[in-house]
């Protein structure tokens, strides 16, 4: 009797397992990029090989890969496959942030326009008013597929960005996002990339009105968060005698920060920010680093990664030709493009931001300038892919072409850093995107729809 029961159970299980497999089998999408040159970044280049994608994840890479008969075949002859590029500090996917940026830049040029906005602000009288604090805001909750810049970014080979909200001085939590998908939720790879801090004071309105005040505010905010955590712990242990702490979203947001992003253009600012991060007891990622060539040793010593702004300083096109530039200015301008080399040689983890550049494609041109001055191509590529993923703790899923990673790929008809090279297509989560026309799009247009298979293409 008992034996029969067991047998019946086993049979039932078998049937169940079969049903599941069958159900899964129906949804398996195989894509194979065949006969392409593959640059996996984590290993040696495969001169002629195949990348096999299964349901948006890389299933196999190699010179010899068994391709299932049902696979959609992409002929890769003459093409090079790279991991999808990552912009390590961006606002892509956050259309409001894009609008906020130029307004801030034009602050000095248009004082009349800036004023009404400023008057709407509530004046802050000190740290307790939590000035410019949006630590509860998460880019992951705000990303939109409708951001027209996503298409431009894909055209340049970017499949991923680490995107941060930008309002105030504690701007909110960034997210690692893929630059495509069916829903906004599809885009998010990691919702906790770090808390973006700016040293942008309020102007004349309220506390803090100086970078010095901003730093004092950060310190107080972090002390308050630690105090809040202690209060919560004490209350949890003894809810009868310890008063229940009031919920505080600003402090919750601070406590949830895996890392902080802090601006540091030069060695002076770098030292300030390293000290600040040490005092906040929070790991730091520095961004900017226009004088990275002077900062490499110290960054290495402290193990601090940096997001390099590759908009190399240049003489203003409309500058007065009679104006004499200082030796220091000239020197910085000359040496800024050597920053990537210096950082690589020192063993500093560095990634790249396209911020301030006219187009995402300009990132590759800027790095080409560095390559011309001694940067290794593989170091440049690594910064755009695997290192960026490592800095944000997503290297298990992004940054290289290897089994198990998200199928974010770029297919180019030559070396990525050559100006004549064209990006032929990108894959995001295994979905192919073809280049879009660069012309400005109609408002609200989401760009060309992604295609899942060859039939949909036709």
């Amino acid at each position: 009797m008992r034996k029969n029961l067991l047998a019946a159970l086993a049979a039932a299980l078998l049937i169940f397992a079969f049903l599941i497999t069958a159900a899964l089998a129906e949804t398996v999408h195989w894509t194979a990029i065949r006969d392409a040159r593959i640059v996996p970044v984590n290993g040696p280049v495969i001169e002629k090989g195949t990348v096999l994608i299964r349901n948006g994840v890389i299933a196999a890479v190699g010179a010899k890969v068994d391709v299932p008969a049902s696979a959609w075949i992409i002929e890769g002859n003459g093409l090079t496959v790279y991991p999808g590029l990552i912009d390590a500090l961006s606002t892509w996917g956050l259309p409001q942030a894009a609008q906020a940026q130029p307004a801030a830049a034009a602050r000095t040029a248009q004082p009349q326009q800036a004023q009404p906005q400023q008057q709407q602000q509530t004046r802050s009288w000190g740290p307790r008013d939590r000035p410019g604090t949006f630590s509860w805001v998460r880019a992951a909750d705000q990303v939109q597929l409708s951001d027209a810049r996503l298409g431009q970014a894909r055209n340049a080979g970017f499949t991923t960005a680490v995107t941060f909200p930008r309002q105030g001085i504690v701007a909110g939590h960034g997210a690692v996002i893929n630059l495509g998908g069916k829903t906004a939720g599809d885009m998010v790879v990691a919702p906790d990339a770090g808390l973006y801090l700016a040293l942008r004071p309020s102007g004349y309105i309220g506390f803090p009105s100086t970078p010095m005040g901003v730093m004092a505010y950060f310190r107080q905010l972090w002390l308050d968060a630690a105090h809040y955590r202690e209060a919560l712990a004490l209350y949890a242990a003894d809810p009868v005698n310890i008063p229940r702490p009031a919920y505080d979203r600003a402090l919750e947001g601070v406590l949830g920060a895996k890392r902080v992003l802090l601006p540091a253009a030069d060695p002076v600012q770098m030292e300030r920010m390293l000290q600040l991060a040490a005092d906040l007891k929070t790991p730091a990622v520095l961004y900017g680093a226009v004088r990275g060539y002077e900062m490499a040793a110290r960054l290495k010593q402290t193990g601090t990664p940096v997001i390099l702004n590759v908009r190399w300083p240049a003489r203003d096109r409309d500058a007065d030709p009679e104006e004499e530039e200082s030796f220091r200015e000239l020197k910085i301008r000359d040496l800024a493009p050597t920053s990537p080399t210096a950082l690589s040689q020192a063993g500093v983890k560095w990634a790249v931001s396209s911020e301030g550049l006219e187009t995402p494609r300009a990132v590759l041109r800027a790095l080409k300038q560095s390559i011309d001055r001694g940067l290794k191509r593989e170091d440049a590529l690594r910064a755009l892919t695997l290192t960026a993923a490592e800095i944000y703790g997503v290297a298990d899923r992004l940054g290289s072409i290897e089994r198990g990673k998200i199928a974010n790929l770029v297919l180019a008809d030559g070396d990525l850093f050559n100006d004549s090279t064209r990006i032929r297509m990108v894959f995001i989560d295994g979905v192919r995107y073809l280049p879009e026309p660069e012309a400005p799009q109609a408002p609200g247009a989401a760009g060309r729809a992604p295609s899942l298979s060859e039939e949909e293409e036709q």
Partner: protein
Amino acid sequence: MRHAILTAMLLAAPPVSAEVTVIQNATIYTVTKGTFRGSIVIRDGKIADVGEKVMTPAGARVIDATGKHVIPGIIDAHTHIALDSINESSVSVSSMVNVAEMLNPESISIYQALAGGVTVCNSMHGSANSIGGQNVVFKMRWGADARGLIYDKAKPSIKMALGENPKRQGSPQGLQIPGLSSPQNLRYPGTRLGVEDVIRDAFTRARAYQREWKDYEARKARGEKHLPPRRDLELEPLVEVLEGKRLVHAHCYRADEILMLIRVFDDFNIRGVTFQHVLEGYKVAKEIAERGHYASTFSDWWSYKVEAYDAIPYNAAIMHRKGVLVSLNSDDAGGAELMRRLNTEAAKVVKYGGLSENEALAMITINPARQLAIDQWVGSIEAGKDADLVIYDKHPLSSYARVEKVFIDGRQYFDRDEDLSRRPKFEAEKEGLRKKMTDQQKQAAPQNRRPS
């Protein structure tokens, strides 16, 4: 051109350092132990020996200073140089901010001050607040990073301010920023009465905060479990002032408000305050001296605002004669313009007030050192003190005198001849870079052209 060259200095090699240096046959103004012709031995950054006859150790670097004049490094008790932000003017009590965080070691003012014989300065928060931010004392160790500049032996201090500056932000006439001087943006206080109130209120809050922590510590010692008080970065420095661990530098002008502040300090038992500017100090010198407070003033600078009208160039001399410890300062912010000729500022108290040369020199060396509580280590030429020394080619109080060499901690940080000889090299290097940039621009030009 001058600016370009000075900027070039930024990239100069670090100054020469030698184990033992002897400055021989100079006229030495020790300030505290008289003036004589003799020699100074420098070892390990300190003055090892000074006198008319001293042993020259074997292997020492010898500087023949025959006909030259050596004074202790000049100390400026009131500047705002080398700070990337100075004034957190948004609130009337901004004690939570610290200008040390904003110290910029690349600021050319440091080199300018150094070239003028200044070796130590107190760089302060601005005067927009009744109680301002924390200040920083640093040495002109040109080439060091911010931490390397800071003179960590100096007692921490805080800025306070009275009169027009702190009350201006509270008055629609004073806060002349279009669109912002609306009532909701105005900051209390708007009057001198209000300034006193803000100061008294802040120290009263600091006392309560101090007590809160003491109570907590006592309960903790008894084994009771309690949430500690919230740490308050605004009140912590004020508690340090109450406990005598932090000095106060109070910006002030008028006699009435100086007396007001003296009473406030009496009530809170705050000692050793340096009144800054203190242009009407000559009227209340007795009251300042009685409490053991100090004064740091200008030699002959006045009438730049209403509250600075009733000033006289005899101020320093009168306060000194009444027993106040007086220093002369530059108040430099943008560049080190007055700072680099503080020796001639000192000379003016010989003319106005008839003080002795030594008394004049004291006002830019040992007196400011006392006000900053660093006189144990700097401010005079004595064995055991930091080897911060300035060599002049002429009498240091002469307006013809030039600084030839400056030593800090025994290291030579400035040498006039070296500076001059380096300039052509920098100029050539700069010219090379400029040419390189122009060539690059020409190459890139066709791509840069915009479509017509």
